[in-house]
Every structure is written in structure tokens, then in C-alpha cells.
């Protein structure tokens, strides 16, 4: 069994990392959206527009 494992594609680690990164970045995106909502609540601006403006910067 051990020997078979030695021949495993090291890509298996890179699959797992993608799941982790997507999760971490996903949280970032979530909070960013959250922030836009708070910001728009006080500035009374459309949150979608706010997002576009930010992206264009």
C-alpha cells in the first residue's frame, strides 16, 4: 500500500487546496458584499452600483 501511495499524483494536494482557497476567498467576497450593503445603507446608494464602481477603480 505504501508503495502505491508513493506514486500518487502530487496533484491530489492541489485539489484540496483549491477547495480551501475557494472557501477563504468566498468568505472575503461575502464580507465585501456585506460591507457594500452597510455602506449603501448610510449613503443611500444602490449596492450593485457601488460594487461596480469599486470594481472599476
Amino acid at each position, binding site marked *: 500500500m505504501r508503495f502505491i501511495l508513493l506514486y500518487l499524483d502530487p496533484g491530489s494536494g*492541489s485539489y484540496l*487546496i483549491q477547495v480551501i482557497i475557494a472557501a477563504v*476567498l468566498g468568505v472575503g467576497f461575502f464580507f465585501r458584499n456585506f460591507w457594500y450593503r452597510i455602506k449603501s445603507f448610510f449613503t443611500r446608494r444602490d449596492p450593485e452600483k457601488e460594487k461596480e464602481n469599486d470594481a472599476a477603480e
Partner: protein
Amino acid sequence: MQPLPASFRDNDGFVFSKEGKIFRYVHPRYEAHYQHLQRSGLLQELWDNHLLIPHTEQEAISEFGFREGRIWQPEKIPFISYPYEWSFGMWKDAALLTLNIAQRALKKGMVLKDASPFNVQFRNGQAVFIDTLSFENYAEGNPWIAYRQFCECFLAPLLLMRYGHPDAGRIFTIYPNGIPLGILKNILPPRARWNLNNYLHIYLQASLSSSSIKTAGKQARLSRGKLVVLLDGLVGYVKGMSVKQEKTTWDDYYRSTILGETYLQAKTQLVRSFTEGLSFDSVIDLGANNGHFSLLFPGKRVVALDADPNCIEALYQQIKQSKSDILPLVIDLAAPSPAIGWNNRERDSISDRLRADLVMALALIHHLAIGLNLPLSMIAEWLLPMGPYLLIEFVPKEDEKVQGLLRNREDIFDGYDLADFRKVFAERYSLLREEPIGNTGRILFLFKRN
């Protein structure tokens, strides 16, 4: 048909040449993917946006000795360059092109199965993807198969240039299949770890893959939405990278030299008048510096070489805007790109690729003869196969720049003078024009190969 030496990795087809033309054979097993590439509109979209090299389909496959499959004739790239010859901005644009294509593909239900910088070439100052067999049908839940390759082949060199030196991309020459992350994390300065993207894509991945045995057998699933987040994240990460301008020797060559403006004007005028009546399509500019002379030939294909990554980067940014047909490359003539890859035949050396109608060696010869101790005959032999016309500037020993080179060393260069220069070149070329450049003592020669 024999595949070309660089075309053995992909099972779905290969590139071959026939009567000097380049073709790509596509095996029937790729058909389902190609059907989707066409029907989804992705192929046309990539062509319309000049992101992918266009091809025409050859109907008569039996003439090529095939009974099944397809044969494409891709548009020819005039000069093949390799990633370790690119400046930072070229690397960055190649990485962004690869991600851009992966994003567009995913929207149309396909994935990019390769993320190799060798699949990117430059023409008219624009990066273009050349491997039409890299597209595969996407299966929901699969992670990006080329992610690791993208990290090792794009992120790694970019980070070495970003944190190390703009010239560090040349390290890719010894790791053309990707710089292993375990090596990369030890080369990068410790502060690089304190960036979230660096940490995730490089450090964490390196430690995870070294312990991959623990995770073996578990196939990770990644939803489409998460894959989009991953690709978007990579785009932002790469876009945010920049190099600090390391001060290099050649930065202000023309501005700071006392040779200055009049010399440059006189030389420009001579180069124009010498080449006016010549018939040529392609130019090699050896030691191009900021590309002042490369830019004198609109409508011609120019390859501009210099060892200074800052000069090449500045030239690249300039022609990227103007879309001129100039290919700027970082080449150190003292250590030119070797032939590498399997059996040393996968990627040609730069010496084998340097072919053009007109070869320019302006203010170069003293660097080779004095700086590198090369005898004039060896320089002439090196220039000879490059092209039929040679525009070369002779810089006499009394010249301020040559004296600078000799300042801290013994003058062992008895064979370096005008008489010798004439003799060596007259043995191989016929002289067409000769003119002194202002009152600098330098002389411009135009030769034609015998």
C-alpha cells in the same frame, strides 16, 4: 507524419511540418471536445477577441497520410519566443491571458486542461494562446486540473521577479515544467509569506502537497461557483503584481551619455538612409536597449533583444499600446537561451531561432570584443548565419565607452582596431555602405553576406 520534437505531451494530437508549413493533427478522441468548443461559440468568441490563434481546416486528410481525425493549419507565429525570454509585463499578460481564457471557457462549459506559458506566444505586442487542444468538457464538481501547473509555471516566476529581481524570470530555463513550490518558498524572502494570496497559493499548497499522502484517495469536489471564485481570485492576484524598478546599467544609456542627442540623431539618419533601398521583411536588433532603432521599421517584423529586463519591459509596454510588430526579448548574449527539454530538442536555442533579413548590431561590438574577450572573427562567424544583410557599428578603442570597459583591466586587445575589423568582415561579407557617425569616431557599416 513525424510530430515536431516539442509536440509529444498531448495524446489528442500533435504538430508537424510539411513543406515548410506547420499543421496540427487532431485525433478522433478529441472530437467530442472540439464539437463543444465550436458549438458553444467559445472558439469563435476567442478568435473574435484575438485570444486564440486562428486555424483553417484542411479537408484532404488522406494527402497527409491520415485516415481519420482532423488537420488544422494554424496561423503562423513569425518568431517563437520562450517564457524565460520575456520581461515581467509579458509574463503577467501571458498569465492573465491564460486565466481570461479559462474563465471564458468555464462560462461555456469547458475547462483549460493546461496552463503552460509555452502555450502563449506574442505577435504585434499582444499575447495569444496557441494550443487549441487545451480545451476539455467541464464536469461539474471537478477542481481545476491545471491549477498546480498555473502556480508553478506562472505564479512562481512572477513572484521571483516581484520579490527578487526583474531578471529572475530566467530561472524558468532550468525548471521549464514549473518551479517546484517547495523550492520557491525557500527562495522567496520571508516577508512574502505575509500576503494572503502568497500564503494560500504557494506556502499552504507546498506544505499540503508534501503531506498529500494523508489526503490521498479523497477526491475533492469543487462546485462551479467555487471554481469561478478561484479563477476570479487568481486574476485579482496577478493583476495586483508589479516589480520595483531596479536601477540597471542601461536605463539611461542615451540620456546620460555625453554622446547624447547629436550622436543619436546622426546615427538614426544613417540607419534610415542605409536601409532605404534594401529589400527586407524582418529585422533582428541585437542589444536593442530601449528599442529606438527597432522602432524605425514600421511594417517590418522586428525582434529586439537586450540583456536588460527594464529596457525590454519599457519597450514591451510601448509596443503593447501601439501594437507594432516588434517582439522584445530579454536575452543575455553572454548566456543565450540554450536548447532545452526532452533530449534537448523540445525548445530551440535562441541562436537557432535568430534568423532575419537584416541584422543590426549597433554599439554592440565593443561589448563582445572587449567585454567578453571575443575575437572579431568569432563575432563575424556568429553573425553570419543570422541574415544576409548586416548593419554594424564599429566603436574604436579610443571611444569613451571602450575606455570605460578597459578602465580596470589590462589592454590585451591588440587585434581590436578598424583595420582588423575590415579584414575580418571583408572575408565573409561585401561592403555596401560605410559612413562615420558624426564626429564620434564611430563608423556605421552595411554589409551583404557573400
